[in-house]
Structure formats: structure tokens, C-alpha cells
């Protein structure tokens, strides 16, 4: 029923009571202007914005938010009003993105009050604009219609309002931003995708959580939103915003259907003994038909004591899925308990400042020791609150550390760090795991606690190992050359992990190293013989590898579209493909760059993945052309760096890559087994 409008298209409105729903994936300001017959906004009293949210027949939200519901009553519009423009603007305060090109395409929908869709419009093609006229509602021969406008303004709200003929445009624009900045102080974020029943719920890939009813994000834009990821910081220079780590199962729903762990996850180790008999009659690949073995539950706690943590104490159809959910639960708990602590400390600081200001402005405090006493008291109150907050944090941290201590040793190789002994008893697996650990996440308040950063397999987006400068590393000690070596080394560690957790012959790796600068670090991959071929050198090598992979993507896409997926050539390699590119854009001509972008966009859906080892500055010559490429990749750093945000409260987490302990031969041992398993089959 809902008409999906394209730019310039209009649609009749049959009802007067409407709701305009906006979802932008990032906080935006929603406002509306009323225009007369000539389209002129007669004065500030014809603008509904966060400072003045209500006009006759129209109401907007008081604050910036990722989702808005604007109420419109066309019958209540003054006679003189012939047009209503719905505007979106990025807030200036709060350090968020400063251009729409850096965020997901905003989506607006006109609905009835009961939520029934009338028309919708996705505002695409925005770039440096920071304000946009999204929709126009207008009278035409006594009836109202809606038109998709999508006119953006690089000069922001001020330029937009000027263009609408408002004399006081500039003052009003700054007034709106002011009102929003005040609202941002207690900003409300869009809730992360999550099922309603709270903690640590089961979220399989097959049931990627849809948007909840209050956040009408269409599926098409949800994936887009996730893809925006790590480069908001880079796309918007100087902006301190931190990109979110996608929530569990929050993958692109239009992407490849990830392996459902309930049907093909490894048989839980406890399946046999737990059911009581020596023989397990259940089909190993039909996990869903039999109830899952009961999760290990914590023994009842002594009164007044927190329960003893147990590995796998979460929901899931297999031990692997339970551990996965448990880790996400720990991640969320640490994010939230730290949020509580930081919020209490901030409050204590601001209260102290206020009280000291009062002491200073009170003339009585100049007499005798009264002022000092009041100052002491204020300090004591601050110290006491901070101490209380720290106690609460320490209590929670102790519990999480204890949980981490039992969970880490229980992890399967794909979830475990390279230092975990499980890697020493590594065997080439028979099944693809749910997820892969790419490193650890930590917060400064909790030095001892590291949360594994798990990403779903197959990879939903490419990886970018940033060999450029990072915010945290002390560049005096790490020179350019060293940074690049570390970046290739961590790329090798990630690649080795991917090779090791896939069954034999189900993961093929290609490497492009145009100048051979990564040769030494790539050594373990090369001489264990796990690569599809030697690293490609020079422009010819680049063109050859990219050409073959592009052709492969085309071929699989054609087969899928034609519904003849089983008619691929018999010698076709059905394995997932990973292309590791070192030293980009060295050796790349324009054609190769285009092919690379094509692989990044289209590859993941057909099993072709990308891992870039690159310094963005090296490719600066391409300008904004490559922005979408960087945006589509998950940025990882070879050294600890606080560039990843959690999906709940958006803390900046320090990411540490999963690296092999110095002197350990585990990586080569594992790769030799991978290579041996492969030779046996072929």
C-alpha cells in the first residue's frame, strides 16, 4: 500500500491526521516550515523546531534523535498555509557527523495515526549537505498532496531557511542548534536492535532482529546503517564520534544468509553424556528437532553473595552459541555498568562546581572560615558519591572478571585468543563456527577485563587494517615503517585465524603485495603453502587477481539471479574467497580501483571478502571517491586504539588485535595443519 516515492514524485493524501516518521540511523533535528501560496515562510512563527515544537496542526520533537514521529493535522493548518516543508538537519553540537554523506540515507514515511503507510521516501545522493528538505506537503485544488523533495544544503539550516525566504534565517538557525545542544545534554539514542525480553537473549543469525515498532527502520536501510560504521571519524575530519560495533546478529539482512547455528553448528560436546545414554541417536545436523541440552546453570548462590559464574550460562542451541551470547552479555553488562559509573562521576563533578560557585558568590563566605567549611563540605560530598559509584563498579567488575576467568578457558579456537591452550590442540574443523574473535575490547575503568570482539561468519563486511597513524599510539616510538610492518603482521594473524576456523578447502586466500613490502611479514602464509598462489606483484599481478575475483562475483551473481546456482562450472572453487591487499593504492590503476570497490560492495553477498592493509593518507589523491570503500570496511588497528563503540551506550572501547604471543610457533603449527588437511583432499 505504501507508495515508495522517488525524488520529485508526488502522492495524494486522503487523510488529514498524519504522522511523519523519520529514521536516520544517527541523531538528526527534525523541523517543519509553513509556506504561503508563493512558498514564502512569512516569519519565525511559521517554523516548528525543537525550540518551538508546536504550531497549529503540527508538532515536531524537542530534541535530535535517530527516529522521529512528527504529528501533522492538515485540517488545523491556517488557511494561509499552502505548503509544509519537513526538514532534517544534522545537529552541530555533540560532535556527530557533519555531512549527510557520512551517514545512512535518511528514510521518511508518511503514515496514518495507526501506523498504516501512505508514502515513503529514502533520501539518497546526499554528500556534503548538512540540512535537507525531505518532504513537501502542499495544497492543490483543495486537497493535500505529498512530494518527495530531497533538496540538500551544504550551508546547513541557515542556507535552507534563507532559501525559503525567511528574513531571520541565520538567527533562527543558530537558535535551533542552541535548543538542540541543550537537549543533547540528555540525548536519547536509538535503541540497538535487541529482542524485548532483556538480557542475553538468543539472537541467531537466521532471525536477525527486525526494527522494533517504535523505530520504523526499513530493512533496506538497516544494512546500510551498519555499513556506515567505522569511518565516521574519517569521513568527518575532526569529529570525535565513534562508530558502533554491530550488535549480535545485526547483520545486513539482505546479505548472505549466515549459517544457522541451530542446524549446522558443531554438536555440543555435552550432547552425548548429557542425555544419559552412550549412543546419541539424534541426527547431528538436525539440532532443532531435539531440544538442546540444558545450559549449564550457576549453582545457587550463598545468601548475600553473587552467584558463581559458569561458562555457557546463556541461552542457545549449542555450547558455542551460548558462549557467544554470554560474551555479548558480558560486553553489554560492562558497557552499562561503566555508563552508570561515568554518569555518577560526571554528576558529582558538576554538583561540586555548582556548589563551589555558590560559595564564591555568597558574600557571607568571605567572613571567617565559613567559605572554607562550605567548600570542604562540597568536596566531601563529591568524594563520597564518587566512592560509592566506584564501589558499585568494583562489585560489578569483580563479578565480570570472575565470569571472564571461567569463560575464556572454555572458548573454542574461533573465539579464543592465540595464547589460549586450545590452539595447541587445534584440529581442522568440520563446521564453520558462528563467529570469529578479531581481538579484545576494554575500557580504561576496567584494566583487567577484556571482552572478546566477535564478528559473525561468514564475514558481513570487509576488514581494514589501518597502517596509518592512530589516535592512541605514541608515534614517536612507532615510525611509518614499523606501523606498516605491524599492520601486515596483524593481517596475517587475522587471515591465519580465518583459514584455521574454516573446514579444509572451504576458505581460499589471495594476496596482493604490489611492491613486495609485506614479504617478510607474509612469510608464514607463504611458506606453509596455505595461499591460493604466491602474493601478486606489480600492476600486472594486481590486474590479474582483481580480474579473476571480479569475474567470479559476476558469475555467481548471474547464476543466483538466473536461479541456476547449481550449474556453475564443475571446476568452480566453491570456497569463500578472501583477498588481502597490502600497500593500497600502490600498483592500482583506475580500473583496478573500480574493481576493488566493486568487490567491496558486491563481494560479501557471494562469498568474496576483502582485507585491506592500508594507510588512508596514501590514497588521499583519490579524494572522496574512496570514502564509500573505507566506510564499508570494519576498521581495525595493529596497535591498541579506542575507535570502536558499543551498540548500547557508545563508549569508546580500546581495541587490541588478536596477535600471536612473541616467540610462539602456534600460528605456523596451525597453518601447517590447514595446509596438510588441504593436500589430503585434493
Amino acid at each position, binding site marked *: 500500500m505504501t507508495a515508495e516515492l522517488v525524488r520529485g514524485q508526488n502522492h495524494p493524501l486522503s487523510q488529514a491526521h498524519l504522522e511523519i516518521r523519520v529514521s536516520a540511523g544517527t541523531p538528526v533535528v527534525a523541523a517543519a516550515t509553513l509556506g504561503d501560496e508563493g512558498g514564502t515562510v512569512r516569519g519565525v512563527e511559521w517554523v516548528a523546531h525543537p525550540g518551538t515544537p508546536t504550531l497549529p496542526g503540527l*508538532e515536531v*520533537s*524537542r*530534541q535530535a*534523535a535517530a*527516529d522521529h514521529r512528527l*504529528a501533522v493535522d492538515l485540517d488545523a493548518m491556517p488557511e494561509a498555509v499552502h505548503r509544509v516543508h519537513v526538514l532534517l538537519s544534522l545537529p552541530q553540537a555533540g560532535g556527530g557527523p557533519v555531512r549527510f554523506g557520512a551517514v545512512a540515507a535518511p528514510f521518511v514515511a508518511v503514515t496514518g*495515526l*495507526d*501506523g*498504516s503507510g501512505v508514502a515513503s521516501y529514502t533520501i539518497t545522493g546526499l554528500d556534503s549537505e548538512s540540512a535537507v528538505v525531505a518532504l513537501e506537503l502542499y495544497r492543490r485544488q483543495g486537497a493535500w498532496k505529498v512530494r518527495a523533495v530531497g533538496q540538500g544544503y551544504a550551508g546547513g539550516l541557515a542556507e535552507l531557511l534563507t532559501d525559503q525566504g525567511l528574513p531571520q534565517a541565520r538567527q533562527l538557525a543558530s537558535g535551533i542548534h542552541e535548543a538542540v545542544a541543550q537537549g543533547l545534554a*540528555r540525548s*536519547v*539514542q*536509538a*535503541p540497538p536492535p*535487541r529482542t*524485548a*525480553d*532483556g538480557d542475553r537473549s538468543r539472537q541467531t543469525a537466521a532471525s536477525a532482529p527486525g526494527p*522494533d*515498532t*517504535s*523505530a520504523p527502520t526499513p530493512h533496506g536501510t538497516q544494512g546500510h546503517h551498519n555499513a556506515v560504521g567505522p569511518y565516521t571519524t574519517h569521513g568527518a575530519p575532526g569529529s570525535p564520534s565513534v562508530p558502533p560495533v554491530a550488535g549480535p546478529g545485526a547483520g545486513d539482512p539482505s546479505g548472505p544468509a549466515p549459517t544457522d547455528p541451530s542446524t549446522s553448528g558443531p554438536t555440543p560436546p555435552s550432547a552425548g553424556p548429557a542425555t544419559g545414554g552412550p549412543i546419541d541417536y539424534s541426527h547431528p545436523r538436525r539440532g532443532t528437532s531435539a531440544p538442546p541440552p540444558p545450559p549449564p546453570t550457576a549453582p545457587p548462590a550463598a545468601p548475600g553473595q553473587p552467584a558463581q559464574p559458569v561458562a555457557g550460562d546463556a541461552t542457545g542451541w549449542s555450547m558455542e552459541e551460548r558462549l557467544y551470547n554470554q560474551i555479548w552479555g558480558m560486553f*553489554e*553488562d560492562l558497557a*552499562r*555498568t561503566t*555508563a*552508570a*559509573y561515568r*554518569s*555518577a562521576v560526571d*554528576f*558529582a563533578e558538576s*554538583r561540586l562546581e555548582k556548589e563551589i560557585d555558590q560559595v564564591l558568590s555568597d558574600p557571607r563566605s568571605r567572613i571567617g572560615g565559613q567559605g572554607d567549611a562550605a567548600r570542604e563540605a562540597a568536596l566531601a560530598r563529591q568524594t563520597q*558519591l564518587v566512592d*560509592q*559509584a566506584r564501589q*558499585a563498579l568494583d562489585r560489578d567488575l569483580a563479578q565480570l572478571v570472575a565470569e571472564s576467568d571461567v569463560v575464556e578457558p572454555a572458548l573454542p579456537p574461533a573465539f579464543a585468543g592465540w595464547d589460549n591452550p586450545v590452539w595447541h590442540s587445534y584440529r581442522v574443523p568440520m563446521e564453520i563456527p558462528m563467529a570469529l574473535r578479531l581481538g579484545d575490547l576494554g575500557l580504561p575503568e576496567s584494566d583487567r577485563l577484556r571482552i572478546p570482539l566477535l564478528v559473525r561468519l561468514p564475514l558481513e563486511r570487509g576488514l581494514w587494517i589501518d597502517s596509518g597513524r592512530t589516535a592512541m599510539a605514541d608515534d614517536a616510538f612507532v615510525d611509518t615503517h614499523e606501523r606498516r610492518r605491524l599492520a601486515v603482521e596483524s593481517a596475517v594473524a587475522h587471515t591465519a585465524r580465518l583459514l584455521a576456523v574454516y573446514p579444509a578447502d572451504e576458505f581460499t586466500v589471495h594476496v596482493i603485495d604490489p611492491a613486495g613490502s609485506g614479504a617478510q611479514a607474509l612469510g608464514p602464509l607463504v611458506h606453509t603453502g596455505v595461499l591460493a598462489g604466491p602474493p601478486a606483484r606489480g600492476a600486472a599481478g594486481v590486474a590479474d587477481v582483481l580480474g579473476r575475483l571480479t569475474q567470479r562475483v559476476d558469475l555467481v551473481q548471474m547464476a543466483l539471479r538466473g536461479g541456476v546456482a547449481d550449474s556453475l562450472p564443475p571446476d568452480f572453487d566453491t570456497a569463500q574467497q578472501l583477498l588481502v591487499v597490502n600497500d593500497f593504492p600502490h600498483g592500482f590503476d583506475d580500473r583496478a580501483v573500480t574493481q576493488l570497490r566493486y568487490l567491496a560492495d558486491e563481494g560479501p553477498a557471494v562469498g568474496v571478502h576483502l582485507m585491506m592493509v592500508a594507510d588512508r593518507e596514501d590514497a588521499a589523491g583519490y579524494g572522496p571517491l574512496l570514502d564509500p570503500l573505507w566506510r564499508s570496511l570494519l576498521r581495525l588497528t595493529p596497535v591498541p586504539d579506542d575507535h570502536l563503540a558499543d551498540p*548500547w*551506550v557508545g563508549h569508546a572501547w580500546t581495541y587490541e588485535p588478536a596477535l600471536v604471543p612473541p616467540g610462539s610457533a602456534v600460528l605456523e603449527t596451525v597453518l601447517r595443519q590447514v595446509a596438510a588437511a588441504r593436500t589430503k583432499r585434493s
Partner: protein
Amino acid sequence: MTKGQAISLQKNDGGSLTAVRMGLGWQAAPRRGLFGSRTREIDLDASAVLFADKQPVDVVFFRHLVSDDGSVRHTGDNLVGGVGQGGDDEAILVDLARVPVHIDQIVFTVNSFTGQTFQEVQNAFCRLVDETNGQELARYTLAGGGAYTAQVMAKVHRAGPGWTMTALGTPANGRTFQDLMPAILPLL
């Protein structure tokens, strides 16, 4: 319980209440015979605002279902109501032990998002429940309650080591909790 009445959330056995739930229920708008799809749905929304020293610090409502610290959780927006037989259609759960130390008051509100006044809504109620044993601590009947679109229902505030609940039941008007802020502030 009546307006203004305060009850301590200390239990008789000396333990204190650890979790409360604010439940909100109402009956869906009756279907209109032939053109059932044109029924004007009734959407009531429950919200909780967390205050530190009379400053709003965080809020839990249908667009922000979990407070940043995780102590207050909304079970999700219900846009139409239920059968009106007393079940909660929306609920907000508060884990009192996990509320950050500086939060000293939590105010619960109910708003009619679709604009019907409580006079027009059938079988609407809101209640506070001790989540640990399901015992009802307070209950308000909203239906027939006057030409208001909102109510500041109750506040839970720190008192000594535990928490105390005060029934407010103050009528107000507004579409979301933001509209109620002027009505809430004098009640803190």
C-alpha cells in the same frame, strides 16, 4: 493507595525491595463494523525519567528502551492496547539495586500518544508491582479519569538505605514525557 500516600519499599522481613515493575494496560479501541481498518487505535505510552538532584539524567520510553546503565528497562511499545482484562500491555522494570548511585528519584508517567483522553479509553490502569513476588503495590484506574491525556503516576525515591514510593497521580496533558517535564519538576 491514594494520592500523596508514601510507602516504604522496605519489606517487613527487613530485606528491601530489589525490583519493581510499572505496568500499564488498556483495552484496544473497538472495531468499527464494516471499515474496521479505520478504527482509531489507542496508543498509551509508559515512561520513566531518572533524576539526580532534580536534573533529568536519563529516560526510558518507547524510543530508548533501556537506560544507559541498564537498570531500567521498557518491555517495548504497544501501539494498540490489549483485551482490557487486567494484563499489562506495557511495562517498565526497575532493578533498584543497579540504579546508579547518584540517581535519587525515578518518576513514572503515562501519556496518550494518539491523543485520546483517559475518558475515552476503556479499562485503562497503571500499577506498580513488586517484581520479586508479583504483589501489587499501587494501582490507578485511568479510564474515566478526566479529560487528560497524561498522568504523572508515581515516584520511587531513595530514603535511607532503601527506596520509598510515593503515589502522585497528578493529571497532565502531553503526548510524550517531554511535554510533562514542567508538570513533573514541582513534584520532585
